């Protein structure tokens, strides 16, 4: 579901003889295509982006964003003084890294399982079932989750019935991360698998045929052909996930956290929401935190991209 090669084609730079204004005139039709999208971007992305300057200002509503006085890095001073901020940063990274490591292989595994299934109609049916939860909002899922995981819910009642100890999923700090992982796997694995499944279906079938002629078992085929072939897709998905480490999972956590888990659930986005709307501070402060988050996200994305390239992969920006 995520894009791979984000960059436009990089062709050999040929110094063209035509002057730039002629080039522009030649492509005038193309520019008209871009106008609707650009208007949207200017109105709803770039005009509001001026708001980022609030991070270095003391916001005064009556003077507007532009008129508010500059204060330099003062807002950041308050940000870094707040211990909950640092905790939120580490918690965000901790939750999302562990979540990424644990949940990442599941879609690949499921894709492999589905791919090996030979009944085509059944396969479609399975796909539908597995993909469906992805399209439900976390609001709905939280309704379902509370139903299933609460102390007298479906799962615990079953555990009780077979004589196992019940698990306090919703209200213990220890179980919070496992609960997030569990619900995330439940919701998103099927959808993640679709991408890998699609990648697998793009593999040249001749490779399998010749492997079978050589007498390779199905396991061997998976390891020797399927996995190496989908590796680029895997890399790209991984990079994109790393890039989102700082902002992943707001909806999930916002709708699933409660009093008992508030210490372990205040990730950066929840923190930002709270300081923007609930505690009594100004918007400059929360803008400073958001800016910080975006910067970290960018650094992570670029770093992951670099690592992928060093490892011989394609990376995002070719």
């Amino acid at each position, binding site marked *: 579901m995520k894009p791979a090669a984000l960059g436009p084609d990089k062709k050999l730079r040929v110094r063209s003889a035509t002057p730039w204004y002629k080039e522009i005139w030649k492509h005038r039709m193309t520019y008209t295509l871009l106008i609707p999208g650009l208007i949207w971007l200017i109105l709803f992305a770039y005009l509001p982006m001026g708001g980022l300057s609030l991070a270095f200002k003391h916001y005064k509503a009556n003077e507007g964003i532009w008129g508010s006085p500059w204060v330099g890095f003062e807002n950041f001073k308050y940000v870094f003084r707040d211990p909950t901020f640092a905790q939120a940063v580490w918690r965000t990274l901790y939750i999302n890294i562990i979540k990424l490591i644990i949940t990442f292989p599941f879609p690949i595994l499921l894709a492999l399982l589905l791919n090996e299934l030979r009944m085509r109609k059944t396969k479609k049916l399975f796909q539908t079932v597995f993909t469906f939860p992805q399209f439900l909002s976390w609001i709905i899922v939280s309704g379902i989750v509370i139903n299933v995981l609460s102390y007298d819910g479906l799962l615990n009642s079953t555990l009780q019935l077979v004589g196992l100890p019940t698990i306090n999923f*919703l*209200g213990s*700090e220890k179980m919070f991360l496992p609960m997030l992982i569990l619900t995330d796997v439940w919701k998103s694995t099927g959808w993640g698998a679709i991408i890998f499944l699609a990648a697998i279906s793009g593999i040249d079938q001749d490779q399998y045929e010749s492997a079978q002629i050589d007498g390779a078992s199905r396991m061997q085929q998976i390891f020797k052909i399927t996995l190496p072939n989908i590796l680029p897709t895997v890399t790209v998905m991984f990079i994109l996930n790393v890039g989102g480490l700082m902002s992943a999972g707001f909806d999930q956590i916002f709708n699933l956290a*409660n*009093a*008992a888990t508030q210490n372990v659930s205040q990730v950066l986005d929840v923190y930002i929401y709270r300081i923007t709307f*609930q505690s*009594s501070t100004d918007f400059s402060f929360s803008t400073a935190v958001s800016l910080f988050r975006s910067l970290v996200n960018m650094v992570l994305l670029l770093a992951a991209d670099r690592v992928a390239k060093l490892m011989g992969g394609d990376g995002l920006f070719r």
Partner: protein
Amino acid sequence: MNTKKLLKPLLAVALSAVMVTVTACSKDSASSGGNEKDAEGNYKDKLKISVAQTTEVKDGVLDNEFHKYWMDKFNVDWDYNYVQWDSWPEKLRLWINSGDLPDVASWNYVHGDFMNYVDQGLLYKFPDDWKERWPNIAAAYKLTGLGDKLEELTGGTYILPKPVYYQNKPADPLVNQIGVIALRKDWAKAVGFELKDAYTTSELMHYAELIKEKDPGKLGSKLVPMSYNADDALTNIIMANSEHSRVESAFYKGEDGKFHWGPADPETLTGLKDMQKAYKEGLLNPEFYTWKNNEGSDNFRVKGVAGIMSLGGLASYRQDLDKNIQKNLGVSSDDMVHTAIVLGDDGKYRNLEQVNFWSTLIFSPNISKEKFERIMDILDYSTSKEGQMLINMGFEGKDWKYDDKNEPVSLLPEGTTLEDKYPARFEGLYVLGDDFSVVNPAIKKEYRDRAVELFQDKAKLGKEGGKLATYDWDVQLYDSKAKSQASFDYQNEYANLILQSGDLEVNWKKWVQSKQSLVQPVLDELNSKFAK
């Protein structure tokens, strides 16, 4: 630059001149204001007034007779904006900051924000003579205390704090209504537990243990001896032992004249210990902290599986409880419910001194004079005796009448309420419903008497050896970045503390320590400003 500066006002003057001529041409009698009345005392001009409240007004509700009456009487069209509870602070903050406030809105007063808003001109400043022009509002406003204090700070009126009590104050000193519990009378009899007007937290836990052990309701594992959610537990267990454990008075001036942080007081630990004990013994529900809104009390009033619930001291709560029990359990609540006050383990009574306001009304800084005046006329009427009767009882002769003893009696069919007939009566914008609930004949007399009795008990207990957390105006009206940073959801923090494994005292100390970097700056600031 200079010419530009000059140009702007000139332009504005020119524009308004044009506007005036335009309106003057379009309307014959628009010479002076929009609040002129015709011969019968009706307003001539219809105004569209936008109002934002947390009362949900569904489609079509505005068409009912009640709303029509107000709209006709004051010749207004309501443009009603519904604010969902869970986005109330978010919305108002957004609206105020972006200058998009409706003409009049309910805002949950936050002092730091208030000072900011006034400073930036985001709230409408009342005309100096408003108190003479709208005497009913002024009288109720005076009782809130907050209004006068804020005027000292800002030199004008910017908000109308909503009075909780106006004509019908139940006791003096006024103590917060919280801290009243309901327990199962029938079970108490069955297990031989004495009925009293006040119990210590330990006594209540003893009751819970008794019903857990003897199970008079034959409920087995479904029984929830104390059906408190996190907030209820804070109110009825922690606060009962430590008056400064709540957010309202967490920072307070001690007897030594220095400022302290209540959650670090040893009394708070006493409360926490009780709460943990209750949790570990299974008196509280294993997942009480996940409960929202009325999930806790539903165990009592809907399912009938709870021994104790947090009720609160208003007569209307008791009435609602009665209705719910009647409807869901099919019995009369009078045989089943006993209400009482909660004391600390040392037998002392603790609660908050009640400030007489809850949330405020604010006006858009861009509101026109006509609209402001019209709204004030409406508020003034809603605050009058006649207006209060209308809001709380409906129309005289149709919905209620005076009986031979000159007491108002309801004419509504048995089992229905005014809310059923005229839903969402948000026109009672100013004085809160608490006030009228003390005298409202729609509420059973016994419930009203009991509520007043408990209020008076609280006042008495508080005065005689009890510990009421006074409302410290210095602290409440002090505003700084450090102070706003040091605000916590205490009920969640406490619930969290008692759930942690390991020794509670150690965890509590660790927790206090972890908050120091935010708390200490506030204490330092307060000490340097107000300590002696």
